[in-house]
């Protein structure tokens, strides 16, 4: 399951073919246009990464880049290894993930619920629209201090913070997704006898899923951002806290190590989301290459 392999150049939008009885089987025989096979591309990517890291390492060793601000990649990796091998980082990572997952679940659930509700009840949408816009316009970071005061240094201030980030993304996407459902699909289902509840199940929810998934990648990232930023501002554990500790003693290696570990954690989560998306949206023609 390489990511490059699934990028099919077929356009998903509006194929107005004249109705030829062509038996197309999508996904097959799609040759990468660049002429490079997936393996060569992977190797080239690896080379690129090595060149950049190698240049970094050399420039630091040569004294051109200040080691204090940009520690050598080899030192960062060894710090990562120390953090992992001693088990130092795992409790922190666990706390961060716990906060992220809670923020994501609560935020996404609330966003979905309110999104569906407002999309289906025009009155509520018009009533609440200005308030939602106001809250959404508020830069969320300024909430972190007040959440710290309200919910304390424990995980709940971070969950609350992550919630405000996740909620709005999922909410607006769901709202647009449900409202943007093709009128003809709704009419067709109604003509076939669908009740309001059946419309929701057979038409609105599947249609909104596309939108929700496109927001899922972003909102998962935001859940983690919320947790880390919250920890950074005030906590007693978590990766954000670990980074803040390292910064406190001018340990830039530790700061970078924390960044790397977070990066890989997010990548793994994103991979899982991709899997889920592929499974649930298997009816879609092809994913656009974003």
């Amino acid at each position, binding site marked *: 399951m390489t990511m490059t392999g699934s990028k099919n150049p077929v356009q*998903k939008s509006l*194929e*107005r*073919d*004249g*109705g*030829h*009885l*062509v038996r*197309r*089987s*999508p996904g097959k025989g799609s040759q990468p246009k660049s002429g490079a096979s997936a393996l060569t591309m992977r190797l080239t990517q690896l080379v690129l990464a090595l060149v950049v890291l190698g240049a970094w390492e050399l420039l630091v060793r040569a004294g051109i880049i200040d080691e204090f601000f940009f520690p050598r990649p080899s030192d960062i990796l060894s710090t990562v290894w120390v953090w992992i091998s001693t088990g130092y980082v795992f409790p922190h990572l666990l706390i961060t993930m716990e906060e992220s997952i809670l923020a994501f679940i609560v935020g996404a659930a609330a966003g979905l619920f309110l999104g569906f509700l407002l999309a289906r009840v025009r009155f509520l949408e018009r009533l609440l629209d200005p308030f939602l816009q106001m809250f959404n316009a508020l830069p969320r970071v300024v909430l972190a201090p007040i959440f710290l005061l309200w919910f304390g240094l424990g995980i709940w201030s971070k969950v609350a913070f992550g919630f405000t980030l996740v909620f709005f993304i999922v909410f607006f996407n769901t709202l647009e997704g449900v409202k943007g459902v093709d009128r*003809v*699909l709704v*009419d*067709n*289902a*109604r*003509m*076939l*006898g*669908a*009740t309001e509840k*059946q419309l929701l199940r*057979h*038409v609105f929810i*599947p*249609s909104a*899923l596309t939108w929700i998934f496109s927001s899922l990648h972003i909102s998962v990232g935001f859940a983690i951002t919320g947790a880390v930023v919250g920890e950074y501002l005030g906590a007693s554990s978590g990766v954000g806290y670990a980074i803040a500790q390292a910064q406190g003693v001018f340990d830039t290696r530790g700061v970078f190590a924390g960044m790397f570990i977070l990066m890989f954690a997010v990548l793994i989560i994103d991979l899982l989301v991709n899997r889920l998306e592929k499974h649930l*949206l298997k*009816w*879609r*023609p092809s994913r656009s290459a974003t």
Partner: protein
Amino acid sequence: MKESVTAPAYAVELDGCTKEYPIPGGGTYFAVRDINLKVKPGRFVSIVGPTGSGKSTILSMAAGLLTPSSGDVRSFGAPVQGVNRRASYMFQQDALLPWKSVIDNVSLGLTLAGVSKADAYSEARRWLEKVGLKNFADRYPHQLSGGMRKRTAVAQAWIVNPDILLMDEPFSALDVQTRQIMENELLQLWQESGKAVVFITHDLDEAIALSDEVVILGAGPGSTVVGTYEISIPRPRDLLDIRDDPQFIDLHREIWGRLKVEVSKTYEAALAEEGEVA
């Protein structure tokens, strides 16, 4: 014609139906005005008119998807409130649910009505065989050609065994050959069925070839019925050769004479509007 003594309940009856919309800047836009349309059970009636003559509006009112601003819509004697439960609708655009496979799309009407999945599937298989798609049951709509999607839509509309079929230019997106094949198949299905069909098209050839009756709409906006023609070409008809039939040619000449006037009006109005904009 109105003194029919038995007063049979019409499958579809529009009585003085007008549909108007308020224009945002003030005033009223009349989509259609004072439409009278009667379709007996088992009859194939086509509605032909120039672009913008409100053909789809009429069909949507018959379906109960639109409520007329004034006038009555009845189906088999009963006023249509909400969606017309005795009718199926075939849309001009693709209306298959893209996230359901072909067989799930076809069986949708049955599953919505609470038929068990096994029964719905076996009935859907029967229909897929009828429309020549039995090997495509597990495909998704985007994996089908335009013609195959239309066949799926036909099966989806017919499987619920409606008394009325409302068809809004269902084949207009298809190429000419595929379209003729689909028309032929539609007639075969219909001939055995005794269902009433209201068929919208802008193509007079298609209307005459398929129908028992052709209704001509005037130029929009605010169009109304300007002519009704009985098509007495005997059935069964062979659609591939029907255009050479002398009866067809006579009818075509006669109806086109009327339709032409409305088409020119529409065209001139469009030109005038363009002139205003420029």
